[in-house]
C-alpha cells in the first residue's frame, strides 16, 4: 500500500465518493479547475466534470446556503471553506439553518452537508489563516465536528462525514497536510512517507465518528488531544519519559466519552491539549466532563495546555503555539502534583 499525504488521502476520499454516489457534489472557492489552494480537490473536475466539482462565488454564507438547499433536495454536498478563519460568514447558516433543519421540521427536511476547512496554525499564516474555531461549533446542538490527525483517519472520517445524515464540520489541520509535525519548528520538514498512518486503504472505508483512538497506552496520566496536537503531545510524552496514555479524539462531537473516562479512571490524571485559545475553548468542556465523571479518581488538577488568550500573532507563532515543551511541563505538573 503506497504512503499518502493527508492531502492525497482527502482527495482520495472525495474521489471515492464522487465515483460511488452521483448525489455527491464538491464545490467551493477555487476547488474546480484549480483543485483548491491546498490541492485537496486536484483533478476532480477533470475526472468528474464541472457539474460535480466546481468553483463558487466568494461568499461563504452563500456556499453553505446553497449546500443546504441541495441537501434538502436530496444531494450530498461537500463544500470547502478555503480557511477555517473564513467560515464565520457562514456561521449563521450553519447554526440557525443546517443544525436546526431536521429538528424544527420534525424530519421533513434535513441538511446532510459536509463542510471542510483547512484549520489551525503552524504555517505562519498570521491572524486570519491560523485559527482553530472548533469550540464555537461544539456548542451548537445539531452539528458534528471532526478533526483528523493523519491520512488514514482523514480519508475514513471524511467518507463517514459525507455518509452521515447530519451536518458535519470537518476541520483539516493544514500543518499536517503534507507531513506530521511534532511542534518543533526548528527541524527539517517531516514527510508522511513511511508513517504507519500514511498507509491508506484503497476504495471505500470509514472511520466511525465518535470513536477516539488510543495512540499510546500508558498509566501515569491521560492526554486528550486532536489534530496537530496529537503529534505534539506524542513528542512531549517521548521527551518527558512519562508513561502517559494519549487519546486522539478524532471527533469532538460526537465525543467518545467512554474512552475518555476509562482512561482517566485508570490514570487518575489528565492533561488536555489544544491549539485554540484557552478561555472557553473546547478544553474547558473536556475538563468539566472529566471532573464531573472522574472526580473521585482524580489525583491532581486537570491541566489545559492551549493557545494563549490573544489573537494568533504572526511573528510569535512559536511563542503562541502550545509546543512540546509546554505540554511536557504540564505532564510533569500533573504527575508530580500530590494526590
Amino acid at each position, binding site marked *: 500500500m503506497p504512503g499518502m499525504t493527508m492531502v492525497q488521502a482527502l482527495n482520495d476520499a472525495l474521489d471515492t465518493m464522487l465515483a460511488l454516489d452521483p448525489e455527491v457534489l464538491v464545490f467551493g472557492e477555487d476547488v474546480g479547475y484549480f483543485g483548491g489552494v491546498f490541492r485537496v480537490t486536484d483533478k476532480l473536475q477533470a475526472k468528474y466534470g464541472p457539474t460535480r466539482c466546481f468553483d463558487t462565488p466568494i461568499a461563504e454564507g452563500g456556499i453553505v*446556503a*446553497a449546500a443546504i*438547499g*441541495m441537501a*434538502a433536495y436530496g444531494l450530498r454536498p461537500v463544500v470547502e471553506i478555503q480557511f477555517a478563519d473564513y467560515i464565520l460568514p457562514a456561521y449563521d447558516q450553519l447554526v440557525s439553518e443546517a443544525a436546526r433543519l431536521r429538528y424544527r*421540521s*420534525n424530519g421533513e427536511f434535513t441538511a446532510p452537508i459536509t463542510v471542510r476547512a483547512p484549520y489551525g496554525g503552524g504555517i505562519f499564516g498570521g491572524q486570519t489563516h491560523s485559527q482553530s474555531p472548533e469550540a464555537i461549533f461544539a456548542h451548537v446542538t445539531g452539528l458534528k465536528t471532526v478533526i483528523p490527525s493523519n491520512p488514514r483517519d482523514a480519508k475514513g472520517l471524511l467518507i463517514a462525514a459525507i455518509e452521515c445524515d447530519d451536518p458535519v464540520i470537518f476541520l483539516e489541520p493544514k500543518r499536517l497536510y503534507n507531513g506530521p509535525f511534532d511542534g518543533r519548528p526548528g527541524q527539517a520538514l517531516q514527510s508522511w512517507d513511511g508513517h504507519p498512518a500514511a498507509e491508506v486503504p484503497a476504495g471505500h472505508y470509514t472511520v466511525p465518528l465518535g470513536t477516539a483512538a488510543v495512540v499510546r497506552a500508558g498509566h501515569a496520566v491521560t492526554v486528550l488531544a486532536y489534530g496537530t496536537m496529537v503529534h505534539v503531545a506524542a513528542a512531549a510524552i517521548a521527551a518527558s519519559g512519562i508513561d502517559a496514555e494519549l487519546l486522539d479524539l478524532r471527533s469532538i462531537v460526537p465525543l467518545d466519552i467512554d474512552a475518555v473516562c476509562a482512561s482517566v479512571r485508570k490514570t487518575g490524571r489528565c492533561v488536555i491539549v489544544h491549539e485554540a485559545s484557552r478561555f472557553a475553548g473546547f478544553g474547558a468542556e473536556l475538563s468539566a466532563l472529566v471532573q464531573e465523571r472522574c472526580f473521585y479518581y482524580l489525583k491532581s488538577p486537570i491541566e489545559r495546555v492551549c493557545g494563549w488568550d490573544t489573537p494568533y500573532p504572526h511573528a510569535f507563532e512559536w511563542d503562541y503555539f502550545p509546543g512540546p515543551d509546554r505540554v511536557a511541563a504540564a505532564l510533569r505538573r500533573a504527575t508530580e502534583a500530590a494526590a
Partner: protein
Amino acid sequence: MAQSARLQLHIPMPAARPGDPPDFSHIAVPPAGFNERPDSLADPGTLGDLAHGLIRVLDEGGDAVGAWAPEIAPAQLIAGLRAMLLTRIFDERLYRAQRQGKTSFYMKSLGEEAIPVAQALLLGPTDMCFPTYRDLGWLMARNYPLLDLVNQIFSNGRDPLQGRQLPILYSARAHGFYSLSGNLANRFGHAVGWAMASAYRGDGNIAVAHIGEGSTAEGGFHEALTFASVYNAPVILCIANNQWAISSFSGMAGAERTTFAAKAIGYGLPGLRVDGNDFLAVWAATQWAAERARANGGPTLIEFFTYRAAGHSTSDDPARYRPAEEAAHWPLGDPVDRLRRHLVRLGQWDDVRDAALVAELEQAVREAVRQGEASGTLGQGKPSLEQMFEGVFKEPDWRVLEQRRELGI
C-alpha cells in the same frame, strides 16, 4: 458643478406618522394594461422598463386588460378566491385564539393573500416554495389540512412539528412548502441551492423563494441572487414589498431611491415590478418567470408591490408608528375585493355564492379550531416529552440519552 458643503447625515422618514393624514402621493399607479409583455426568454438588458413600471391586469371595473392578462379557467379563479378568503378567515380566528391565550404568537397576511395563492395554484406539485411567514395562502391553495395548522399553532400533541417550532413556522414538504424559521432571508439561498440541485439532476422542478422588502437588506439576499445568476438556477425570487418592516418603512431598505425590482439589473437578471394586490397580475408575472426558468432561461426577480394591512404580529401595535387609516387609503385596493369584482364581471360570482362560501369557510375554520382545542392548546396537552429530545441528530448521542434520563423519561 457641485460645491463642497457641510456634510449631513440623511435619516429616511416615511411620508406619514400617527396623527398625520395617510399620504401615498409618492406612489405612482399606472393604469392596468400599461406595460408590454416581452417574450419570456427576452434579454434582461431590454427589460429595464418592467423593473421600474408596475405590471397590472385588473382595472377599476374588474376587467382583465392588456398584454399581461392571463388565461385562467373560472374554476381556478374561484379556487383562488376561496383560498384567499380561507386565509383571511383563518388569520382572523387564530389571531383571536392568541389573544385568548391559546397560543403564544400569530402573524396575519391580510392584504397580501393574492401572492402565495396565485403561485400555489399556478406552479406544479413538485415545485418548491421557500416561504415567509406571510405565505399561509400557499398552504390554503394546496388544501393543507386546517386541523394540522391549528395543531401546530397550539403546539399540542398532534402538532406535525411536535411542539418544536414557534406557531405558524410551518413545514409541509408534501405540499411544496419548505421549513420556515425566524431568521430572515436565510432561506432565500436554500431556494437557489434547491433549484441548482434540480438543474444538476436534469429534473424539471423549479423553486419559488419569498422575502420581505425589509429583509432584502440582509447579505444573504445578495448572495442568493449572485448564486442564482452565476449558475443560472431555475428559481423565481420574489420580494413582497408590503411597505413596512415592523415599524420601519420601505425607505429603510432603499425605496427612497429606486424600486426593489431594479435590484435585478445589477445581476443581469429580469426584474418585474408587479401589483401584488392584483391576483391576475401575480399569476401572469409568475407564469412568465416559470416559463423562463423551465426553459433554462434562469432566474427572475419579482417585486410584488403590496401593503401589510394588519400589524406585524400579535406582538405589534401599528398605530404606534403609522396612521391608523393608512390601510384604507392604499391605492392598490384589496386583493380579495378585486378578484371578487373580476369574477362578478365574468358572470361567475354573485353575493349569494359569496355569502355561502364565507359561511362554509367560517364553519370549516370553527370546526378545525374546535378539534384542535380538543387535542390541546399551548401549555395544555403538549406533545410527549421525548419529542423535545428527538431530531437533534438522526440518532441521539449520549448527551441527549443521559439528559432524557436526568429528566426521568
